[in-house]
């Protein structure tokens, strides 16, 4: 995305509102929505990938060694990964300014 969306006028849109840049919404930071943040405890993780498969925001990455990493750029703080992790390796903490 070249410009922030609020600066784009109709003159710059493609005919038929075609978006010709696949997946450009990935530039949008949904992490701003969060009021709580997941904290990962690697020592408890059994590398099952359950958190990865259930995250509705694709905010969990499985690393080469099988451990995971949260992507706080996208994480909306829903808490699903915390709830679904079989070993309680993730906990939620409040976001502070």
């Amino acid at each position: 995305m070249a410009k922030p969306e609020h600066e784009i006028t109709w003159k710059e849109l493609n005919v038929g509102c075609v978006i010709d840049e696949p997946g450009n919404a990935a530039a949008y930071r949904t992490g701003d929505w969060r009021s709580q943040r997941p904290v990962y405890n690697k020592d408890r993780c059994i590398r099952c990938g359950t958190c990865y498969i259930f995250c509705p925001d694709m905010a969990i990455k499985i690393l080469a060694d099988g451990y995971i990493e949260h992507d706080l750029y996208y994480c909306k703080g829903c808490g699903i990964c915390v709830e679904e992790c079989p070993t309680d390796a993730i906990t939620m903490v409040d976001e502070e300014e």
Partner: protein
Amino acid sequence: MDKNLDRLNVYASRLISQKEYFVPGHRACQGCAEALALRLVAKALGRNNVIASATGCMEIVSSPLPLTSWNVPWIHVAFENAAAVASGIEAGLKVLMRKGRIPPKRINVMAMAGDGGTSDIGLQALSGAMERGHDFIYVCFDNEAYMNTGIQRSSSTPFGASTTTSPAGSVVPGQTTWKKNMPEIAVAHNIPYVATACSSYPFDLMEKVKKAAAIEGPAYIHILSVCPTGWRLPPQMAIHAGRLAVETGMFPLYEVEQGRYHLNIDLSELRPIEEYLKIQGRFRHLTPEMIEQIQQRVGEEYEKLKKKVRMTNEGQE
């Protein structure tokens, strides 16, 4: 049973492709299991896939102009005609291949809509497309109301649920009609494949989508998609709620392949329906009598389904 029972193998999540075709940065609410279902469907279908989407939450959250969450060709169409547009795409691709304008290969065509877009307003287009026998997949993301416009009841809203157009009050206790059986309507078209799925069972869901894509002709998949916002549910409970819907028999997971029924999770004993209802604000007002009424109905419907499984499999073992 441990809480994540769908795991065919605890580590199965690590065996699937990490590639996403529905990318992050989408604007679904926190904990939206409809967005999760969509992610899983897109993942299962992969790259050679063209999608026609009716309006609804999943259209709005994935295409705020000039942004798109899609890594595959995707078109937003009107509320009522996703299946008609998908029919046109399928026919068009066929012609282009026949004329040698594009190389022949298997390109999957999918139509998607919410429950309002499927069981109410898009039903005619869907019925036509199934009857004409187009080679496409139709996926209904059933969050049990018109969520995108603010939780209005649809014909897929369950009995008793409070929505903004079936509010629970002192006279009327929420939705007064029973949920329309949309998968059964698809089955009545004698199409080769019909399945129900839920994002709380991700591997089952992806298997079904892959199967639907491989089959020639129309395939219909009905996905129960937990909507924390409309169901008045804490977002972290979305996956748990979907699991309870299946385990209580409220939303059985089954497939109908060439007319033969198969229960994917065959429960000998259903969990009490109350476990599912009590965690959701939309059912908070239900009286014990109404819960009993729902329990009875769920039991009957489940028995009916099991009977169909037995009937369509007799002598075929």
